[in-house]
């Protein structure tokens, strides 16, 4: 932005895009500029609005306001197909091709070379081979796409997109399931395409890769544009601050007093607990009456840690103890049996059952814990539901209302109530305040503190660093699927957390050796 303006208009210009889903404002006045021949990283945490922006640009969602210009002309594609016709192609993380068709058919579907109404299979294969050769791939194009690795499928998708005369190529998390070598191949192809003048939008949460490949970076947060920078002149700490933190002046927010530091009993502990390719083995002690916050970027291993602790994922090494006694956590059932509770991040899909009432949702976990042979009577259910609706101030205070009709904050409270009804000793909360309005936000945080004062052990994941700082007694910072820092007491502040997340590769290597 601070560069001298180009004489030619930018390749893709997005100005003042807004998009709401119901009451949720997914994008507010977002600008985005892509030049020909550049690789432009689009960054932001979950819910920042990256996917929405891409889908608005490519016409999958209609936009509420704003303009999109391609090569200086206003465009308003109404479908992904129209966007492709205009010259904007998207390759998603889950390759949107057809694994049951041959590579050649995938490259030329709906535009196969024809003669007398018959597909010229030989000609199609020859062209497919030639096209892929441009990308350094020499494979049997007659074989089904599904028989090849994800990397090859990605390259095929890119080849198809480019061959459809794309001027703008959007790659949404293309490297998430690729290994190092495959990433190198992909980056080689991206650089080659950029030299041909194609503008590439690169969405990724791997910051190393962003620094390796991108020319410029645009950061979104909570549906707003935070800024656009040259990659070379943007320090990593600054980038992470853009993604996570508030403005500099605000990051000084300190935590509320958490009461006296009594010697607390250990509720559950994990030694060398981990799973290969999932989370590097970690040590973690969770004490009664203590909140441990898990901080880190998306994909750093926060949710993975939570799932291991709860038993939703099986560890392949290490020892878990509950109240000092060794236990095995093989399934969520084990977790529940040992008095653990888990409120997952995806409330809508993994948590609440929208069609069931508040009462039914609340008693769900308790009933599961008791087993089918000891059903809760309707009177017991009513009693439990009434108690928690009152205790957590769930509104409207009607236990017979389907949960799907409640607001996000109240749905979250119902989830909390579900686990509290099982009288857990440890509760894991994954992004408990996501998608909740500001008022309910404060209330959830207050609840977390109260529960903790009652002697519950809490493990809380949040992308909101201010929030974590407010309620945590200890903060574990994760990076690249490993626990890298353990902050306690006065050391907990936003600056320290950011520094730990941003620590450069050199320090990572050092830590790994010590």
């Amino acid at each position, binding site marked *: 932005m601070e560069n001298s303006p180009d004489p030619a208009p930018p390749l893709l210009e997005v100005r003042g895009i807004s998009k709401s889903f119901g009451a949720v404002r997914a994008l507010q006045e977002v600008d985005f500029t892509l030049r020909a021949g550049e690789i432009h990283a689009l960054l932001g945490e979950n819910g920042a609005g990256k996917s929405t922006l891409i889908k608005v640009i490519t016409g999958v969602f209609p936009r509420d306001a704003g303009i999109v210009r391609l090569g200086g002309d206003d465009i308003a594609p109404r479908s992904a197909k129209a966007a492709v016709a205009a010259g904007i192609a998207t390759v998603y993380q889950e390759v949107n*091709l*057809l694994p049951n068709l041959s590579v050649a058919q995938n490259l030329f579907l709906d535009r196969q070379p024809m003669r007398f109404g018959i597909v010229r299979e030989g000609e199609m294969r020859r062209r497919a081979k030639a096209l892929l050769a441009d990308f350094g791939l020499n494979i049997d194009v007659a074989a089904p796409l599904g028989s090849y690795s994800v990397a090859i499928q990605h390259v095929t998708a890119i080849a198809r997109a480019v061959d459809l005369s794309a001027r703008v190529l959007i790659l949404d998390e293309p490297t998430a399931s690729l290994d190092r070598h495959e990433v190198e191949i992909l980056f080689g192809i991206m650089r080659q395409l950029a030299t041909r003048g194609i503008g590439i939008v690169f969405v990724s949460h791997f910051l190393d890769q962003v620094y390796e490949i991108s020319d410029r970076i645009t950061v979104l947060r909570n549906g707003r544009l935070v800024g656009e920078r040259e990659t070379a002149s943007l320090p990593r700490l600054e980038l992470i601050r853009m993604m996570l933190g508030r403005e500099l002046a605000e990051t000084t927010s300190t935590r509320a007093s958490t009461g006296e530091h009594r010697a607390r009993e250990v509720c559950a502990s994990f030694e060398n607990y981990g799973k290969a390719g999932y989370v590097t083995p970690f040590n973690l002690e969770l004490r009664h009456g203590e909140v441990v916050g898990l901080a880190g970027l998306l994909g750093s291993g926060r949710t993975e840690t939570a799932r291991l602790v709860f038993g939703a994922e099986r560890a392949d090494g290490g020892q878990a103890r509950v109240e000092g006694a060794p236990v095995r956590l093989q399934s969520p059932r084990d977790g529940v049996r040992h008095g653990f509770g888990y409120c997952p991040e995806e409330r809508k899909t993994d948590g609440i059952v929208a069609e069931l009432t508040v009462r039914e949702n609340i008693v769900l976990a308790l009933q599961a814990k008791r087993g089918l042979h000891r059903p809760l009577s309707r009177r017991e259910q009513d009693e439990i539901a009434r108690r928690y609706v009152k205790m957590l101030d769930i509104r409207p205070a009607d236990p017979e209302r389907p949960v799907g009709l409640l607001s996000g904050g109240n749905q979250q409270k119902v989830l909390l109530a579900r686990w509290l009804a099982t009288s857990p000793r440890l509760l894991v909360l994954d992004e408990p305040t996501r998608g909740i309005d500001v008022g309910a936000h404060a209330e959830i945080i207050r609840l977390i503190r109260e529960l903790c004062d009652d002697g519950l052990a809490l493990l809380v994941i949040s992308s909101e660093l201010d929030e974590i700082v407010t309620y945590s007694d200890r903060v574990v910072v994760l990076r690249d699927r490993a626990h890298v820092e353990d902050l306690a007491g006065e050391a907990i502040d936003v600056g320290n957390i950011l520094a730990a997340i941003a620590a450069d590769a050199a320090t990572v290597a050092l830590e790994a050796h010590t």
Partner: protein
Amino acid sequence: MKGLPPVLITAIVLVAGFALCAVQFPNIASTRVVGNLLTDNAFLGIVATGMTFVIISGGIDLSVGSVIGFTTVFVALAIERWGMPPLVAFVAILALSAAFGAAMGAVIHVFDLPPFIVTLAGMFLARGASFLLSTESVPITAPVYATVSDFALRMPGGGRLTAIAIIMLVIVIGGALLLQLTRFGANVYALGGSRAAASLMGVAVGKMTIKIYMLSSLLAGIAGIVFSFYTSAGYSLSAVGVELDSIAAVVIGGTLLTGGQGSVIGTFLGVLIQGLIQTYINFDGTLSSWWTKIATGILLFAFIALQQGLVALARRPVTKSLGAAT
């Protein structure tokens, strides 16, 4: 294209079954029996060809049996009671059944409904409509019927390749070419692979859905005409359950019930296997003809289990390489 191993297995089952039957009843290995087998199953082969397209595209068409029933009644009444020339009656019923299929396809696409429900409704509708036309069997005495029934190509060994068997073979071959060689065929596979991806890749999913169900109903209409030649009558209760027989033939022929893979040739072999079982039971003479159904059921189980095994085998190397990648 794909699904070759399952087709090969179907072919082996057919050949082995035929050999076993021939050992027990040497007379089975004659062109006379084979000719009859083709004639007796002509309508099933035609309707199963359409079903193959539907199932590969990820759908199902339960209405075809009823469409056959309706067609026989319509044709019989049109010729015998309403005085239509047979050819006009044929064109009318084919237009009608194609429109019926197109309508079901449109409903499936526009309202995003499961094909199972929509074609189930179509099944009741068509069957009900045929009862409205007539509840009793209407014999067809038009001279054309006698001519067609008498027509047959002589095969060496005394077998007769009847007109309706020829129609069936032409449709099977035409269907196979349509599926393997044309853009339409590729799109049918694409739809069965993933509707969402196919749509993103530019396939006109709505139009394709309509065309596929139109094709299925049209072929059911032709099967109905063939059935009326076969029985020389129109009866509203004819071809009850044929939709299930044809689904069985498609699955035994190696087509994945979840869509995306399969072939018309496999379906044809599936039809022949069912016909062979029927023939064996006829030759045996002591077995109840319901043993056909039992044998078909056992074969279906075997083939579905086989497909699951093949799918699991095909998936294994992919997950392995993924595991190595992470």
